[in-house]
């Protein structure tokens, strides 16, 4: 053991590469192609959030926890991964799941209510959305540790919210990952609230990234509405994890622009002007401005991106509007590899 924790400390301020006005704050940014790819991701993710919200209002989805405002985190978390890597999302991370390649209709199956998980987790290496807070984090560590034992270069991106960091499994996962040197990047989307509870009631830590020190895990803070900074910080974290430096903790400062879900009334716990102050920090506006100022984005290019996002939205709409009659027999089919005699009997009665 060494007592020196300095190298584990996050930067004093969240890393920002592109300012709110679109200006570059640093000479090295992700390359042009990466920024354009990120913008496409953001435009699609925003459109997906809007589409899903509309589908809730139309009664087609049971509920939707939107990542509106947090799209930069969603997109960057998926885009920094290689094919062999894994993503462990929460209920709020549908946009990241889709950016990773999962069909949005399959990704929304949980929220539509046809089944608990609509996609094959192995196809794109995306775990099912996890609802019990922070419980997916030890799984992420296990996948990473198994990969390491098998000599595979897998890195696991594990997502959680600011509220989730108070759960025991957050602590256990970071501690296990650190001791096992498991290649996991823990990305905390600090959107200031856990339903109604503000961050100040969640922690007295100087920042959530500081929590890494207690485990011997390097922490970093990043502007969660600056996709360029997220790409840079997360790429770095993934690379370090992949090269054997052990787990990494990244806190992204962002904001949940909408209520917790459609069922929540955010006016009961936060003021409109607080929300309004975050409008100008919108991740899409910022990147768009930056790319236009540098002559990298024309109306044409943006139109093509919007069109691609529209296609995703239309596909989502069509798929979710299509009624599939869920089969009650399925309720008994997957409980065990081989149904017990009791389940066979009950399935015949149901």
């Amino acid at each position: 053991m060494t007592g020196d924790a300095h190298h584990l400390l996050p930067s004093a301020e969240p890393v920002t590469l592109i300012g709110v006005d679109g200006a570059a704050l640093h000479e090295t940014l992700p390359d042009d192609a990466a920024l354009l790819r990120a913008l496409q991701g953001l435009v699609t993710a925003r459109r997906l959030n809007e589409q899903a919200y509309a589908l809730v209002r139309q009664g087609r989805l049971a509920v939707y926890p939107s990542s509106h405002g947090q799209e930069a985190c969603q997109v960057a978390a998926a885009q920094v991964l290689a094919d062999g890597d894994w993503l462990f999302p929460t209920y709020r991370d549908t946009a990241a799941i889709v950016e990773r390649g999962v069909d949005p209709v399959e990704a929304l199956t949980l929220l539509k209510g046809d089944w608990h998980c609509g996609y094959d987790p192995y196809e794109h290496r995306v775990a099912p959305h996890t609802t019990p807070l922070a419980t997916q984090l030890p799984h992420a560590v296990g996948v990473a540790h198994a990969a390491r034992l098998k000599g595979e270069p897998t890195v696991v991106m594990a997502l959680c919210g600011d509220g989730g960091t108070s759960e025991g499994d957050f602590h256990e996962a970071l501690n296990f990952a650190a001791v096992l040197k498991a290649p996991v990047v823990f990305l905390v989307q600090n959107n200031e609230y856990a339903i109604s509870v503000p961050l100040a009631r969640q922690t007295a830590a100087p920042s959530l990234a500081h929590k890494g020190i207690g485990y011997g895990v390097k922490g970093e803070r990043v502007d969660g509405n600056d996709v360029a900074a997220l790409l840079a910080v997360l790429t770095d974290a993934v690379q370090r994890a992949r090269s054997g430096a052990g787990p990494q903790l990244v806190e992204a400062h962002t904001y949940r622009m909408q209520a917790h879900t459609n069922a929540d009334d955010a006016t009961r716990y936060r003021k409109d002007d607080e929300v309004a102050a975050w409008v100008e920090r919108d991740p899409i506006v910022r990147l768009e401005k930056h790319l236009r100022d540098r002559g990298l984005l024309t109306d044409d290019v943006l139109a093509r991106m919007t069109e691609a996002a529209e296609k995703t939205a239309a596909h989502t709409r069509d798929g979710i509007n299509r009624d599939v009659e869920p089969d009650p027999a399925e309720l008994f089919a997957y409980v065990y590899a081989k149904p017990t005699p009791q389940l066979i009997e009950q399935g015949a009665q149901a």
Partner: protein
Amino acid sequence: MIAHEKLSMAQALNRALRDAMSADPSVVVFGEDVGPLGGVFRITDGLTAEFGEDRCFDTPLAESGIVGVAVGMAMNGMRPVVEMQFDAFAYPAFEQIVSHVAKMRNRTRGKVSLPMVIRVPYAGGIGGVEHHCDSSEAYYAHTPGLHVVAPATPSDAYTLLREAIASPDPVIFLEPKKLYWSKEEVELSAHAPAAGIGRAVVRREGSDATLIAYGPSVPIALEAAEVADREGRSLQVVDLRSIVPFDDETVCAAVRSTGRAVVVAEASGFASVSSEIVARVTERCFHSLAAPIRRVTGYDIPYPPPKLEHVQLPSVDRVLEAVDDLQWELS
């Protein structure tokens, strides 16, 4: 290749782990003190030395983390066998077990299976202080998606553990602590045997009444049958071995053959595995019953301190009293 050796249950479990690890490189063992120490009950003795630290390792002290990490490893091609140090110390892992271990296969329509074993040294009768003697089987048995087994003999301990490790589904493996040191001749196998999970076994034939027991209560039932025999009453003993899946067929055939039954279990009786057994046997065998099924269980109290645990544990006397109560005057 089949060999025979006289082993205690603890040794049989250790052999099962070793043989499974030799047969399948994806089997990994981890938990608290399971490495160089070999576990507080020595069930993992020698595994780190034989298979290396990647295959058998000590973890941080955190049960939810142990089970949660096992879930991830099982998702990624491994067959984790984790040890909870004692029954009551598995509770921190309860959320992982109920919300993920039990549900992953169903959640993913069979795409993700979790071939993992959670070993739990369990139940009392060893003079253990508070938190070391809980009979926690009902919590697990109530949770769809888990297999729950409890061996009562060294042979079953070996066979059931091999089978549990080979199973595509998660298994809660309850090891009756007080039987760790009981010995018998055990048949060892190079391959995972397939016999026990889901199958009860008639341990002793008898014609007057059936004693239904599992895990730590099986020896009590057998002893009671022995005493009853001397007193002129022939008791049959059924050892469940597997609580989930439950072997209705064997249990009901046994009860129908005698027409009377007593369930013997160490756990508190209220809302328990023993109450489930009475309910299902009554539903299925009502017309064969000459008397209501009786239960001999732990009382509905927190597990007593060592000096009083004899009050809680089913005893031969309590079993025989329950048998005496089976309305013999009506037959």
